[in-house]
């Protein structure tokens, strides 16, 4: 009996040793090459969206959750044990195309999931220089999350910061401001950017439509009203500048020239009790009376 037991133990020992040795060798080999090969290159997320939807079936939401977790796991710094002691961080060589596909796959399965667009916004435009791809992700999120102002806010930010288009950014911020529970500063910021980008009329109409839906008793209503009146003043001056250009064949050298030439009887009132200012580029400011000294503009 004991001899049989010894034989069994020996066989088990040999099998276990063989298993441990082979598996350990395999793991060593995998770990040696993992830093060069991006893990995100392989996976179900590389399948066409339609196939992905077909495979996921009724478990689309859970699979989208998993893919977003996978994206989070692929990103970030990796900390490994240093053979000499302690830890060291490894800068991974990200395969941004594959990581982008991961986000797209996750969004295909669940277009409303917040974590997808937030993580994508946190990485893709900054580290991968994938601004237009991020905008696409944000656009889908904004469409499918009508209660959430943040996708539009992020889109506006990207348009202003990365794409250097304040006018369009302002329009996006103004649209975001119309979403319930959006912070009131979005409307003011949007109006300012839209006006800066030469979209004064758009800014005015969006502000008007917003004011129409706000109770005058609500906090922030008067701020929006002041901004509307200031923009209306800017629009009057902009139109007068164009009329003056047609009349005398050049841009006015100062805002006082508008009244002197009879194009305007008087400059419109500014609710901020500041002078309007026309800079060298032809932009009218309602809140920057010293625009001439700051950027070489022409002060009234």
């Amino acid at each position: 009996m004991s001899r049989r037991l010894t034989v069994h133990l020996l066989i088990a020992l040999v099998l276990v040793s063989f298993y441990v040795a082979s598996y350990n060798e395999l793991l060593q080999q995998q770990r040696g090459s993992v830093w060069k090969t991006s893990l995100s290159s392989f996976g179900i997320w590389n399948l066409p969206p339609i196939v992905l939807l077909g495979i996921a079936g009724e478990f689309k939401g859970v699979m989208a959750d998993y893919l977003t977790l996978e994206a989070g796991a692929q990103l970030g710094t990796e900390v490994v044990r240093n053979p000499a002691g302690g830890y060291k961080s490894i800068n991974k060589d990200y395969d941004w195309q594959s990581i982008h596909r991961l986000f797209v796959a996750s969004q295909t399965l669940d277009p409303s999931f917040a974590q997808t667009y937030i993580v994508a916004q946190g990485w893709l435009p900054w580290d991968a220089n994938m601004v237009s791809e991020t905008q696409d992700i944000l656009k889908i999120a904004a469409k499918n999350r009508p209660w959430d102002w943040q996708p539009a806010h992020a889109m506006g930010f990207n348009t202003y910061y990365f794409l250097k288009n304040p006018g369009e950014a302002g329009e996006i911020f103004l649209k975001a401001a119309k979403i319930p529970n959006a912070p009131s500063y979005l409307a003011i910021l949007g109006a300012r950017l839209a006006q800066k980008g030469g979209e004064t009329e758009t800014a005015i109409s969006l502000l008007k439509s917003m004011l129409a839906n706000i109770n005058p008793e609500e906090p922030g209503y008067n701020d929006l009203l002041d901004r509307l009146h200031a923009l209306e003043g800017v629009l009057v001056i902009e139109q007068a500048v164009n009329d003056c250009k047609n009349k005398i064949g050049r841009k006015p050298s100062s805002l006082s020239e508008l009244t002197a030439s009879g194009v305007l009887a008087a400059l419109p009132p500014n609710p901020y009790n500041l002078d309007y200012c026309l800079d060298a580029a032809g932009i009218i400011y309602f809140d920057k009376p010293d625009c001439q000294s700051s950027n070489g503009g022409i002060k009234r």
Partner: protein
Amino acid sequence: MQALRNIWFLALATCTEGIRHRALWAIVCLSVLLTFANLSVTTLFTWDLGKVSVEFGLSAVAFTGLLLVFFLGMKILADDLERSRIFMLLSRPVSIWQYLAGKFLGLAMILLLATIILGLSAALSIHYVLWQYPGFMPPNFSWVSYAMALACQWMSLVMVLSVSVLCFSFASHPFVALLLAVSSYLVGQNMELLRRVVVENAHAGVLTGQDNLVFALSWIFPNLSLFDKKYAAAYGIVFSCQEFVLLCLYAISYSALIIYLATLLFKRKELA
């Protein structure tokens, strides 16, 4: 009246048999496990925790239900044939349609029991998550929508069950029936997707221009994607009572038709 009584007794016997398979205990254990899994999985996320929790809970119900249909349901049906118990039943004044209807109702009752237990445990875990992280409560979330989504899930499982009974009624071997039922489930889940691909996509390969074929298939296979309300429950998207009632009617009419068809086919099956 006697027919209804026969069906009811058979349904009760089938339900009891299912419970004796220890399936119910397995479901209770699974529900406890999934409740804890829901709590831990949710904390892996930073945003939309409520959505993750609701969707995980409802997906757990769907997954367990499918396991019950494909394995427990098919086993109970196959056992009757393999252990020749069916002859004992059919030698009494029980017709084939009563037998199949009774079996179907009994299995649907097991599914209902499982859905209630799993749905309640999922609701508990969701409630805990929403209580812990109130900032991530989905907008317009309501327990009524959750209950309706759960009911839709059960109806979807009942439709899959009816297709399984149909496959069982003509397949030569339970394994073949299982394969056919799983295939039907996959087709049913993707029916809406297939329809969209063919109708909305001009470059659908071999499917281009096959609108009539897809239309015909959509009437043959159960359109299970219509019953998938996890997304609506997870994001608090309201779906109307009218839609719910229509889904109920669709599930009942489709299941009744399939069970009737299964009866016709089962009569031709060589039982011995």
